[in-house]
């Protein structure tokens, strides 16, 4: 189905994005562009609109829910069944050859799709080696991606593949916004008429691009230009040479568009703005942690290996350059060799889980230092009885969200909080991305297309009875599905008198609220258990509504004894229940306690010994656990450490949090 696309030339504003896109049209060596920014800022409109200003190039879209066979290509089962021929049915990577490949919401793409994309982008070729088909074809394309960083981060390998990076923002100018409305409505009311009205402008732009393309081979790069690019890249702290290559190529494109045969300083500086930001030392907001989980890293390794194999010797000098640069910079081990950014992250495994926090930081700043006034009330209530001399001030304490991510202590907590990424889904939910042979198991989720392809080559020797196809057990393929999940955190909070009596509860609430805030952004699920008096209570079953958890916490009453064992026991039950229902869930227990237990003595066992026993059960089941140790004062019993020996989790102390500025009061306006 053809659809009418809003003309590129008619998009008001967004000059940065337009420049970056045009440079890529003029000079594919720029290496693509990633448009990142808030929703509703014409990212997709610009990308889709590119087609009309090129000379017959298409914008091939990569849908989010693409399956492997359609992306890389697969045997055409229909031809195989009917004609007995093994023919490749080309996938999107072939269609994209010589064209523009546009991936909307590129940060939400399946891992396999990202891998395939990276492989093709690196080698310029797509190799199909499956189902009795063995072939390779060119797959050189301008890669355009768009994403909203709120939705999740991008793998560093993929980010590095984009030559340019542009942050797109909404216009803040009234007349500009009016113009945007006007044009959009005109377009919707009469698309064809609108296209006609903009035909002249579109044609002018198209000519400009064509002229620049013709000029490009004559645009030369002097030693000076190269040096400037290199020094800019070095200043920006880029590793590898991809950054400066992108700068030079983009500057050439800019010069060509301007009708100059030599890029001037302005061209280079302009190009550097787009080419270096995402490669600079602390990458911008869009990078995701390296995929956690063994599966993924294995896959990455495998993929890189394949990429190495498939690369043919005549693959162009540019690629060689990049190879050289990464090889000289890094070791020779597996997935990291090709990719400076990846190994950068890889060096410090603790960085892995939560990724850089710039995005949250900038968001928090926009929101007025991330202050949530709702928190103050609770803190006040909790802290009514306390004095005011400490580092906590009455009315107005809250915690800056970004600190959570920078701090090592928090990393410990969040690392425990499960895999926040794509996981293999074992039930029938999730996105079907690829398949595997069925083996001996009972088949419930048949990948029919793959099964047909597997059966196809044998049809001429099989008895088909009345059907067009004869399928045998060995042909059966099962779907592999991926599901995006957040983490799952079960808070177990000590609400006994000792907590309420001093100001600890106030700190604890604030710290937990900060964690909740973090979960909110990650779309984690949370639950909450409180223990006090004679029992533990499930205040909140596992839910996605982090707001509810926050309300429960605010209104948490304190007092009574400390039935720690009961709290842990309930947590154990909740977690086991969840694991039964959702085998792939990987919840983490966050115990907020000073480790003290009190209450009725069992026959010959103290309440603490009882708690140790439950802790051991949790540890034995390999349930992830973090203890937020709230013990304070001069004399410490380090009970939490003893608990943790059994739970085999991580202990984080309030002091650590305080030292890292997490439990840090920010004076409010009131």
């Amino acid at each position, binding site marked *: 189905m053809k659809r009418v696309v809003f003309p590129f030339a008619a998009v008001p504003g967004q000059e940065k994005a337009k420049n970056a896109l045009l440079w890529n049209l003029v000079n594919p060596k720029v290496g693509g562009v990633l448009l990142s920014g808030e929703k509703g800022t014409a990212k997709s409109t610009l990308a889709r609109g590119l087609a009309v200003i090129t000379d017959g190039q298409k914008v091939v879209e990569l849908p989010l829910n693409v399956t492997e066979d359609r992306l890389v290509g697969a045997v055409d089962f229909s031809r195989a069944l009917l004609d007995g021929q093994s023919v490749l049915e080309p996938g999107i990577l072939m269609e994209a050859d010589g064209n523009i490949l546009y991936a909307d919401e590129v940060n939400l793409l399946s891992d396999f799709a990202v891998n395939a994309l990276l492989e093709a982008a690196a080698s310029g070729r797509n190799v199909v080696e499956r189902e009795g088909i063995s072939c390779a074809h060119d797959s050189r394309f301008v890669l355009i991606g768009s994403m909203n960083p709120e939705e999740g981060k991008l793998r560093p390998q993929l980010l590095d593949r984009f030559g340019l990076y542009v942050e797109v923002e909404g216009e803040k100018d009234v007349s500009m916004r009016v113009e945007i409305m006007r044009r959009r409505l005109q377009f919707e009311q009469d698309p064809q008429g609108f296209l006609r009205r903009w035909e002249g402008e579109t044609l002018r732009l198209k000519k400009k691009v064509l002229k620049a393309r013709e000029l490009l081979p004559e645009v030369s790069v002097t030693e000076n230009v190269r040096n400037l690019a290199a020094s800019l890249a070095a200043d920006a702290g880029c590793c590898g040479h991809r950054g400066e290559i992108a700068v030079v190529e983009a500057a050439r494109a800019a010069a060509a568009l301007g009708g100059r045969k030599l890029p001037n300083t302005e061209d280079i500086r302009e190009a550097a703005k787009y080419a270096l930001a995402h490669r600079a030392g602390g990458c911008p907001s869009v990078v995701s942690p390296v995929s956690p989980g063994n599966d993924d890293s294995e896959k990455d390794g495998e993929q890189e290996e394949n990429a190495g194999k498939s690369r043919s010797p005549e693959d162009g000098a540019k690629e060689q350059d990049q190879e050289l640069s990464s090889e000289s910079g890094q070791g020779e081990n597996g997935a990291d060799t090709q990719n400076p950014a990846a190994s950068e992250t890889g060096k410090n495994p603790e960085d892995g889980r939560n990724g850089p926090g710039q995005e949250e930081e900038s968001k928090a700043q926009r929101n007025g230092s991330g202050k949530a006034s709702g928190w103050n009330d609770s803190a006040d209530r909790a802290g009514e009885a306390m004095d005011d001399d400490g580092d906590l001030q009455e009315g107005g304490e809250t915690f800056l969200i970004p600190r959570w991510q920078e701090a090592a202590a928090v990393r410990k907590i969040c690392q425990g909080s499960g895999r926040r990424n794509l996981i293999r889904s074992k039930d029938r*939910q999730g996105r079907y991305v690829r398949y595997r042979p069925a083996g001996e198991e009972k088949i419930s989720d048949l990948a*029919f297309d793959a099964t047909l392809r597997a059966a196809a080559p044998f049809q001429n020797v099989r008895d088909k009875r009345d059907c067009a196809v004869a399928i045998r057990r060995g042909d059966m393929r099962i779907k592999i599905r991926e599901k*995006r999940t957040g983490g799952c955190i079960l808070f177990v909070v000590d609400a006994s008198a000792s907590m309420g009596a001093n100001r600890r509860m106030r700190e604890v609430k604030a710290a937990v609220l900060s964690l909740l805030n973090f979960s909110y952004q990650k779309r984690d699920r949370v639950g909450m258990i409180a223990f006090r008096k004679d029992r533990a209570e499930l205040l909140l079953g596992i839910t996605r*509504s982090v707001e509810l958890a926050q309300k429960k916490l605010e209104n948490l009453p304190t007092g009574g004894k400390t039935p720690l064992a009961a709290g842990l026991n309930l947590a154990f039950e909740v977690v086991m229940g969840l694991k039964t229902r959702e085998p792939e869930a990987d919840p983490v227990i966050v115990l907020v306690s000073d480790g003290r237990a009190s209450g009725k003595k069992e026959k010959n066992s103290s309440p603490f010994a009882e708690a140790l026993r439950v802790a051991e059960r949790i540890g034995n089941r390999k349930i992830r656990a973090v203890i937020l140790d709230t013990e304070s004062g001069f004399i410490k019993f380090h009970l939490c450490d003893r608990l943790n020996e059994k739970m085999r989790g991580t202990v984080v102390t309030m002091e650590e949090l305080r030292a890292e500025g997490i439990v840090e009061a920010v004076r409010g306006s009131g």
Partner: protein
Amino acid sequence: MEQKKGYCFTAIVGQEDMKTALILNVINPGLGGVLIRGEKGTAKSTAVRALAELLPLREEVKGCRFGCDPADEAHLCDECRERLEKGEELETVYRPMRVIDLPVSATEDRVVGTLDMEYAIRTGRKKFEEGILARANRNILYVDEINLLDDHVVDVLLDSAAMGVNTVEREGVSYSHPAAFILAGTMNPEEGDLRPQLIDRFGLSVTVAGEHDVRRRVEVLRNRLKYENDPEGFAKEYEPKQQELRERILAAQKRLSRVVYSQEIMELIARICIQLEVDGHRADIMMLKTAMTLASYNGKTRVEKEEVMQAACLVLPHRMRRKPFEEAGFDLSLVEEMMN
């Protein structure tokens, strides 16, 4: 089995915001659907179904899997276009607008469509088997508890809703077809919110609550019982009102293209959106379109401030940049202030 006559839209007591939002979407399907937030038992589903039933029959290409509109050549599916290009006359039938349900358990292949297995086994050929989005073309797609849908299903849903086209590149099929539907999603905010990115794709949102006024509650009850006892009689009683609304909607549909707006109105909208710091430009565009549709519904051909005001209440609340744990901060008084 003969279907029981549905409830009358005009007999629904209260819930004016929801009713208006739904009607506006019917008048102008370009509004991008409505998200209804609220607790259970607040006539959400009843209203959606009753509205579809209220509307007159419309023309469809006979035998088309996507219910193409023969008058709208720009949005014909490939199959209809091919027939047209071969010089075939497209035969038409009259059918009512339907409400297509999308259950929370729906898998992606059921939603977007997939390879037709049976056909492949019988003939060895590929055929696209249409999914829920195909049936939803030109109809209302009703998604109860949309916040509980798998994220990736919601992704494709909203993508299609925005583009009016469903593109399938999976399981051996490569196909695209028209999927222009009115998306009506409901959710109970207590069970977790939709991702902001997705919520932004909904044109309008309304919050419904149970009626707390005793007299109104009694009226709700009385109407319901009357309907259950005698659906036919009930329908007859409300037919004049139904007819009146039907005509009003049809007139508004016709009038819509003649509705004009001034520079001041556009500036006002832009200023409101800047002041409230909404992300991107979708809110501006939606607000203007909603105000135009409202004007048309109100029998006018010029957008005035009151329409902008009303549009703001439908378009902005779910687009406010939310600080975690704060109630969505839509401040109507701020908009009011700017009006004057």
